[in-house]
């Protein structure tokens, strides 16, 4: 099982990205605003007209029927805008749409598992309009998990969550990776990426600026080059914090 892209390019937004993603691991995509993170994620999911190739399990993604692609790759867009005030359960059940004709017990089991994984059981019948931001973000992730994708591509699922909720959701994503799913997630919070991702891909102006394990890809020198800020990592591994470097240059 693998997901890889070669020379993936979208005019004006992505300039030839080559990368390889591993199943069972959390890969964080980081980069300054406008670096092409969301574009890369959408192109990996096969949702944007792009040049270059995305290869899913040895097969070019563009050649796959859309139903197969939808079953293999779960995509969570950045905008959590839901048109209708669905209940949590109904929202999660939409994740089953690619599995037309699957037996009903299987669908029910997948929906139950997704709801349980994200700790949404008490909120199951609550309408989205009555959820807090953190609960809503969890419900949106559960929607994707209900489709049991082999790859989970999430665009800033932690955006606008407070620390506790962000940590809980990140833990859920890691647990999903531990079950064998390949998780690719756009993260704005560099400390979150440093401490919790298995590998990191840093984008800058549409191209890969660094890639590898977090300590290497998010090294202070890389941050200085890509984000153009002088920063320092503090604390032990797995619990690092980022601070602006206040010392005079």
């Amino acid at each position: 099982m693998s997901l890889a892209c070669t020379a993936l390019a979208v005019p004006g937004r992505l300039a030839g990205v080559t990368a390889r993603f591993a199943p069972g691991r959390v890969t964080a995509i980081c980069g300054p605003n406008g670096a092409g993170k969301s574009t890369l994620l959408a192109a990996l999911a096969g949702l944007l007209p792009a040049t270059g190739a995305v290869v899913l399990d040895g097969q070019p993604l563009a050649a796959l029927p859309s139903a197969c692609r939808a079953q293999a790759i779960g995509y969570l867009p950045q905008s959590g805008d839901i048109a209708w005030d669905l209940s949590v359960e109904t929202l999660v059940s939409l994740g089953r749409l690619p599995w037309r004709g699957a037996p009903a017990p299987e669908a029910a089991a997948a929906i139950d598992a997704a709801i349980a994984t994200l700790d949404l059981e008490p909120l199951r019948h609550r309408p989205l309009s009555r959820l807090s931001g953190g609960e809503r973000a969890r419900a949106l992730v559960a929607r994707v998990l209900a489709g049991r994708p082999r790859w989970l591509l999430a665009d800033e699922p932690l955006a606008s969550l407070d620390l506790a909720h962000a940590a809980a959701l990140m833990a859920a994503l890691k647990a999903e990776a531990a079950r064998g799913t390949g998780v690719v997630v756009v993260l704005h919070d560099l400390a979150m990426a440093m401490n919790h991702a298995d590998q990191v891909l840093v984008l800058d102006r549409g191209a890969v600026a660094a890639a590898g394990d977090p300590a290497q890809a998010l090294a202070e020198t890389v941050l200085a080059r890509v984000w153009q800020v002088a920063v320092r990592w503090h604390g032990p591994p797995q619990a690092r914090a980022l601070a602006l470097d206040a010392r005079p240059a």
Partner: protein
Amino acid sequence: MSRVTALLLAALVLALPLSLLAGRVWIDPFHDAAGNALVILVQLRAPRAALALVVGGGLGAAGAAMQGYLRNPLADPGLFGIAPSAALGAVLSLWLGAAGALALPLFALAGAAAAMALLALIAGRAGDSHGGVALFTLAGMMIASLAGALMSLAISLSPSPFALSEIVLWLMGALADRSWQDVLIAAPPTVLGLAALLAAARSLDALTLGDLAARSLGVDPRRLQFLVIAGVGLTVGAGVAVAGIIGFVGLMVPHLVRPFTDRRPSSLLVSSALGGALLLLVADCLCRLLPLAEGELRLGVALSLLGAPFFLALLLRLRRGLA
């Protein structure tokens, strides 16, 4: 079958025989079995009731599909400009004096088909991004105002006062004096249209999550757009062809039904079709019963009188974030 679908179905089964008995002449099913009553029943009221079911069902489902497609509770099948284009076709047939029992609905269906073709052409150019949908909707509104302008032109240049009054009266929309032939004209396109909308149901559900997420779930935006144009065009076109312009059904019914469903567009389609059929059946009966000195209240006028305040109340509710 969901609970609201079952309830609406039961209400329809109850309302249908009552609507056949109600009118200027009340029919007593237990005594008055004379030939006269039978003629009224079979030749006048039964086709009228059947048309209410066909037209109302089509408009209700089209409204539910439009709201799902545009992800907006204020969307109405009228937005695509299909109803005014069908009306323009009908007006042209009246203007040309070619309005036979068959010519008028066929002209109207041709008008609806022209609008659908134009929409499909524009959709092909607008692309399938979400900006494309906005452009496409604006194009529909342009078609609507163009058809409206051409109708005004036809009215102002009408060849005779008789044609003028005929056009104006027809535009108000009604089910009075319709025959089984009208049912035969409207039913097949409506059934086809409903089938197209039902085929779009899953894609409309996916669209709840937004354009990108819908595509990630395997939705083909082109296919969806085609099904929605065909479904709304056929149902609304057939409705206008036999009943004239009957507004607000497609806006009101999905709204009234939605709170009783799980709010997915797919669960709204069938229940809105049933709700639309029930609304037209009951409204047509009430129009028939209302004691007016001359003739009867036109159905289209009655529903607009009901619909406009409803729309306003809906806007105010949405502003308060309650809908």
